């Protein structure tokens, strides 16, 4: 069971308190009327399904209820960092070496 850090509660908690919300940083098109069918399908269904480091959404559903984002390596299951909703996605270069450890 994964150990997940909630950036709002500022504690690590067991995975049972959380729900994974899938890939992060997929914005809902702001003007759906002007979005093509293809782009809408892309938004609805298409995900990178990366083997390696991905940004994904988590919700502390049985805690503070907040959504936040995390960088997780899908191979090792290790989290590299956690950040609040609305904050930019950290790049691997900017991550401190010890982050997530």
């Amino acid at each position, binding site marked *: 069971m994964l150990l997940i850090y909630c950036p*709002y509660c*500022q*504690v690590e*908690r*067991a995975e*049972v308190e959380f729900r994974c919300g899938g890939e992060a940083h997929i914005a809902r098109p702001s003007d759906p009327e002007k979005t093509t069918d293809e782009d809408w399908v892309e938004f609805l269904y298409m995900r990178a399904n990366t083997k390696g480091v991905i940004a994904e959404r988590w919700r502390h559903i*049985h*805690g*503070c*209820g907040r959504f936040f984002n995390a960088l997780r390596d899908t191979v090792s299951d290790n989290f590299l960092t956690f950040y609040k909703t609305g904050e930019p996605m950290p790049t691997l270069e900017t991550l401190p070496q010890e982050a997530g450890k």
Partner: protein
Amino acid sequence: MSDLLAGDTITPDAAKSPLLSLPTASISTAVPLTRLSFRGRNDAIEAAGDAFGVALPTAPLSCATAGSRAALWMGPDEWTLLAPEDELKTVFDTIEAKLADPAHALVDISDRSQAIIVSGEKATWLLNSGIFIDLSAEAFPVGTVTRTIFHKAPVMIWRTGIDTFVVDAWVTFMPYVSGLLVQAAEELEAA
């Protein structure tokens, strides 16, 4: 009970017999309470605290108490306000009156949940039969409050003393929560 944080707010319901009464652990049903969910952004926190009479805590997982009222941090924009049962209307109206301006939400959730008080030297052991949180005094000091999961049921736990916890669960989940706690405590009676 007065040495406890919630001593004046959450007390055992004298009308109900304890669910568990052992030398090392006991569980009693708490009296009915006024519970309000207060939601708002930073601009509403101070006014709400003034109106309620207890400053809303902003440190994660913390609580603030004054007299028979308590404000519990539930999330960055969410607090549970506790007060005696008969103060529901007063508290609700006072806050709404003082917070005309900053956007906020105040909702009565008094009856949504029930609280039990779990205490005794085996209290943490008992809670850890179903809660995956480090409840050592260092990791979860007195005053800490959080929502979590007890086995399969969502609960809120609030440490009001070194050996005393308030466990709050939605009404229909409470038989599951208290029932499992009583079952887990059975082995404490074994020879």
